[in-house]
């Protein structure tokens, strides 16, 4: 098959893996040769759906022995199957990189024959890049399910980041949509191997490990997803979890869910994840409703604030960094600026806060500036205008909300 056709098929089949980050502060790959690492990550283009293209993200092959119900590459799908040669792929990538189309390589694959053999071939591609081309730029290597610790270690020497996709939050849910995969043995065990490697040798996998979950394919709720995420961050030291809203690309009749999942749900999960990772929120504090899902009408921080009105309003000139981060409309940058400024000044006006970067529309009802409240009416009435008539708040908290209203 012509290389252009292979590129088309094997890119198209890799696009549902949403990880696009290319940021890495340190290189594990010498100083000779070409290619470098960017601390910030660089977007080289944006797709018509608005996603950043920073990596040359392709499959080595779209052939797969497995039959995961949601996956476009599953063996029972009647699609054209193809495969890059190792050298062919390495050469093609270098052409993209030289022209500044991409910031690095993201190599993934269907499972051809078995995980071990396919992974060996993926590693071969990277060896060509590292040893023959002396490429010292960014490489993200996908780990295939059930691969042995020895091969993971081999990849860990060569790659900047590695990941294995968990896809579902629990064993039961995985069984529903990926019948051939064993949650603990095929997915969690390789993650723990990577954790051990990173802990023992800082030069290996310097950009850490990540994972991805498909949202909504197995009928799971947000609480199940976030519970697993919290565990992965705490126990496996993952640096990032990606959430990809399920898009039905197959006609599999036994898929538990057949409708596409809203992008809003995906975005709420990212926000909740961010609150846990960066804003010091405990998992238990996240505002799940009775069905175990995050509210769609409000972002989780606003929902949390509304459900915890007794903790507001907060005096901007006195609150700790952590407390500032809990105010809707105040992010990490503006919280840091407030803390710095307060060393020499008192913040006296809404305009100052706006200049600093606070989103006043969201924050104004939850703050005091030098004891003065600028929100609407009395504090107890203040959330009325925010809520709107059709808002659905978590049922279990209706009583609490009634008090506020």
């Amino acid at each position, binding site marked *: 098959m012509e290389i252009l056709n292979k590129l088309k098929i094997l890119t198209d089949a890799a*696009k549902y893996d949403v990880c696009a980050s290319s940021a890495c502060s340190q290189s594990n790959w010498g100083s000779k040769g070409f290619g470098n690492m960017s601390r910030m990550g660089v*977007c080289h*283009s944006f797709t*018509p759906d*608005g996603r950043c293209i920073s990596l040359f*993200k392709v499959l080595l092959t779209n052939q797969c022995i497995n039959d995961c119900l949601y996956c476009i590459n599953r063996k029972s799908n009647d699609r054209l199957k193809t495969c890059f040669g190792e050298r062919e792929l390495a050469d093609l990538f270098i052409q993209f990189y030289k022209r500044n189309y991409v910031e690095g390589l993201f190599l993934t694959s269907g499972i051809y024959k078995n995980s071990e053999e396919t992974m060996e071939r993926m590693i071969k591609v990277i060896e060509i890049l590292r040893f023959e081309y002396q490429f010292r730029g960014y490489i993200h290597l996908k780990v295939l399910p059930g691969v042995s610790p020895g091969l993971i270690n081999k990849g860990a020497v060569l790659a900047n980041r590695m990941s294995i996709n968990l896809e579902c939050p629990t064993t039961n849910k995985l069984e529903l949509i990926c019948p051939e995969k064993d949650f603990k043995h095929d997915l969690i065990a390789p993650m723990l191997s990577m954790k051990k490697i990173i802990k023992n040798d800082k030069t290996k996998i310097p950009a850490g490990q990540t994972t991805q979950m498909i949202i909504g394919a197995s009928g799971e709720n947000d609480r199940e997803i976030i519970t697993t995420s919290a565990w992965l961050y705490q126990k496996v030291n993952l640096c990032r979890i990606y959430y990809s809203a399920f898009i039905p690309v197959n006609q599999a009749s036994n898929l538990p869910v057949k409708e596409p999942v809203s992008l809003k749900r995906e975005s709420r999960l990212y926000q909740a994840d961010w609150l846990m990772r960066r804003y010091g929120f405990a998992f238990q504090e996240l505002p799940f409703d009775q069905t175990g899902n995050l509210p769609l009408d409000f972002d989780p921080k606003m929902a949390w604030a509304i459900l915890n009105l007794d903790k507001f309003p907060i005096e901007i000139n006195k609150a700790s960094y952590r407390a500032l981060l809990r105010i809707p409309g105040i992010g990490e940058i503006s919280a840091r600026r407030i803390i710095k400024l307060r*060393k020499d000044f008192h913040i006296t006006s809404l*305009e100052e806060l706006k200049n600093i970067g606070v989103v006043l529309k969201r924050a104004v009802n939850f703050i005091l500036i030098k004891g003065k409240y600028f929100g609407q009416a009395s504090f107890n009435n203040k959330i009325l205008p925010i809520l709107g008539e059709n808002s659905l708040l978590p049922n279990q908290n209706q009583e609490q909300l009634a008090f506020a209203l």
Partner: protein
Amino acid sequence: MIIKFKDKFESIFYAVLYGNLTGYYLSSQNEPDDLFQAEEFIEIERLNWKEILDQHNQKFGKINWFKNQDEQFRQFKNTIELALRHWKQFKYKLIIETIRQALKFGLIYVNNKTSNEAKDLLNLTGQVKSDIHRALGFIRFIPIERGKEKFLLAYFEEDSQVGDLVINNFKNKYFGYNLLIKTSKTVYFLYQHQLYQLATNKFDLQITKDNFDKFWEVFYQANFIPERKNTKLAKKLIPKKYWSWLKEGQIINQVDKNLI
């Protein structure tokens, strides 16, 4: 009387101090001076800066942040140097006013965007940074080889004057290559680790595209997920000014019209 300064942090800083002492008007050497043609001017570069600082210290009190030159100072200096690269002329007004505020209220006040002028100045700096960042992503090189020498050539349209910073950023990425970036005004040429800047009209080089474009096009289109279509966002992220050499513009338009 007008105090003329160069587009450098120290030059503007001392010009502001001298302006505080004398009440004279300040103007950049790069500003069109039709308005003040009849006015006499002093070049700040020709004056004794130490004397200006001493006099300023005596009259208005010591400027501790200038003496200490700590992290806050570096941040402030960096902000001003980046803002000077912006193409808008009103940057000078903002820079001068922000330095005056820094003298009055300290660096923390301006570095954290507390006043409207400081906020506007930092926004200008943000635009310059964004120009650099976009250049790093959107520049497309054409590789050519001449004997043993390898070259990467590109065309890029710069708004702010950032070409030298951009090419320096590529230095490590393309170690072993000579780099040339042509803009409508300037050619930036990194040849054997040395950076040269030439006027474009004095440099006769046409950059012709090779046919690797088609690989990019295929790759780009294959990355699109129709179910997530959001061309409005894509157009915002790849502003129209880049469309003259990025194929993406045409493709996004076709997606818009449901042709893809």
